[in-house]
């Protein structure tokens, strides 16, 4: 016993059976504990995980075990890329992965999936968070207002869905803006820059134009250029350089 080709059988909530190498399965601390303390020959039931999700999880574990053991020639950067692609799934699947990683106690997968969701919700408004997490708002109107007022500045410049927030711009600096907009980006800022573009168009462009709305409405709008665009998982980064003072 204990050879690397030992296999463990896992049965999911929907009665699918997976046979996996022990080294892969024990990436899950839960499975490891059951295997080491229970009867190693019978099947381990993973009641709360479905076949589809377990299949994905086993892919993850296998990739990481192989890379750590040197069985696969993959650099840390390539593994990072692989992980980034692994989490490009719909929200339901992502949440299922989190629940499964938590119950199977696979720490690195839990960290990865939680950080992915964190990146998704950056910059969002509380209403959107409640929808995403299925949370009931238990504040009274007055109480919620009070909390908002205390941190008013954290809500500044949050517009509708798809608003990009430019924070605290100083002129003549390179500024980074992050948005998790899905379809259209509306950019507003302290010094009144306004821009509307669709994300799909943004992704293909090397530079885009941003129009500064001057304080004095009779002054013509000033055009600036966005120098760099990065489209990430659930967010877009735009790098601006403002050449002139408002």
């Amino acid at each position, binding site marked *: 016993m204990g050879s690397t080709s030992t296999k463990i059988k896992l049965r999911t909530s929907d009665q699918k059976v997976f046979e996996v190498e022990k080294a892969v399965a024990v990436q899950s601390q839960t499975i490891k504990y059951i295997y080491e303390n229970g009867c190693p020959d019978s099947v381990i039931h993973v009641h709360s995980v479905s076949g589809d999700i377990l299949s994905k999880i086993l892919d993850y574990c296998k990739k990481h075990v192989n890379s750590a053991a040197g069985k696969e020639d993959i650099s840390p950067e390539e593994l990072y890329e692989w992980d980034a692609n692994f989490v490009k799934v719909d929200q339901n699947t992502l949440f299922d992965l989190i629940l499964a990683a938590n119950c199977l106690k696979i720490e690195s997968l839990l960290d990865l999936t939680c*950080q992915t969701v*964190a990146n998704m919700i950056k910059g969002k408004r509380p209403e959107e968070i409640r929808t995403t997490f299925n949370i009931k708002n238990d504040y009274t109107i007055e109480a919620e207002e009070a909390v908002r007022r205390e941190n008013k500045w954290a809500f500044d410049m949050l517009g509708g869905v798809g608003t990009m927030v430019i924070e605290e711009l100083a002129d003549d600096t390179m500024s980074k803006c992050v948005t998790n907009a899905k379809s259209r980006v509306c950019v507003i800022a302290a010094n009144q820059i306004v821009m509307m573009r669709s994300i799909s168009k943004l992704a293909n462009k090397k530079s885009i134009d941003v129009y500064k709305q001057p304080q004095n409405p009779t002054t013509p709008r000033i055009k600036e250029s966005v120098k760099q665009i990065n489209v990430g998982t659930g967010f877009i980064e735009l790098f601006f*350089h403002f050449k002139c003072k408002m």
Partner: protein
Amino acid sequence: MATLSHDLAIEILRGLSVKDLLRFQCVSKLWCSSINDSYFIKLHLSDSLKTITNHSLILRKSGYDFVSVNVYDSPKTTQRLNHPLGEQKKLLKILGSCNGLLALIDDDNRIFLWNPSTRKSQVLPSTEIDFSSASSFFPRSTYYGFGYDPISDDYKLVRMVQLHGNNKGYLHSEAKVYSLRSNCWRRIKDFCFYLILHRKFGILANNALHWMVFKTPQSWKQNLVGFDLGTEEFRFLELPDLCLDKLFCYDIKAMGGYNCLTATFRDSNDVVAEVWIMKEYGVKESWVKLISWNQPHLLSCFPSVVVVPLAFSKNGDKVLFSSDVHTFVWYDLGSKKVEKVGIRDVPIIHDVDLYVQSLVPLNSNALMINNEIPPQG
């Protein structure tokens, strides 16, 4: 649709910025209390410290403004910060930076604590120097330090005052400690070393504050003294034996949690900057020379220009230096190559410190609301 438990929601919240978390207090009462929970705040902070995320340099510009510069990401970004005193612009110097809280001091020796991420600030109650005679006539040295004591889970500010008499004697030495939890000062045991400069700010490393002082009034060599924030005791720490030949100046700093010594050696042909790290706290033999950097180009500069090490890179392979008044460079420890940090609009810098964004709260009884100091007492 799968619903995540609250514990899993907290796991997700750990990865968010302070601004997002402040806003998400509105999601529900449970989220609000979780975000303000001191355990969560510590978890969020320790994540940031461990992975060196949410870290930036904070610079005090000429004038009154503070600017935060993120040197860890590419490209580097600068962000103007709301001045802690709002519209009442005042010249504030950075006294210390710890876990997202900055201690600032003005020309009247009023001290403020400021969390730039939560935008909360408070002023410290003033405290007299316990010396009866007309103490204002005597020249004095006042040394400060700010740090966190994990034993009492408290932020403390230390003030040491020494009044100088004639003939290199001294008239009075006192040390006081301010505790954030209690929002008051208390006097501690007098110290018995000598402060020479008018004012100095302590270096925080290993849960202790450090200054260079003299053991006796007649000393010509400076010694490193450490103040343990937990036990509130002073102890001397040995420095490495530096080659005194051509030694121009040396000073202490902290980097990556270690005590660090910078020494500049000059002669007519060379300027060499050395950086030493104390790997094991309090052990003289554990001082290791990390960098020996030859910079002949500084020969022609005004003699007091030295390079100051600020921080390690995320994976520890480079050290960030500030070189003259508005340049930053990354020094690669392996290749010994120097890479200038391209930050646009870096102003003339007067103060620079490292700071991490955190939710660490101030004393709720002492908070400044609308930049007004609450009534004392």
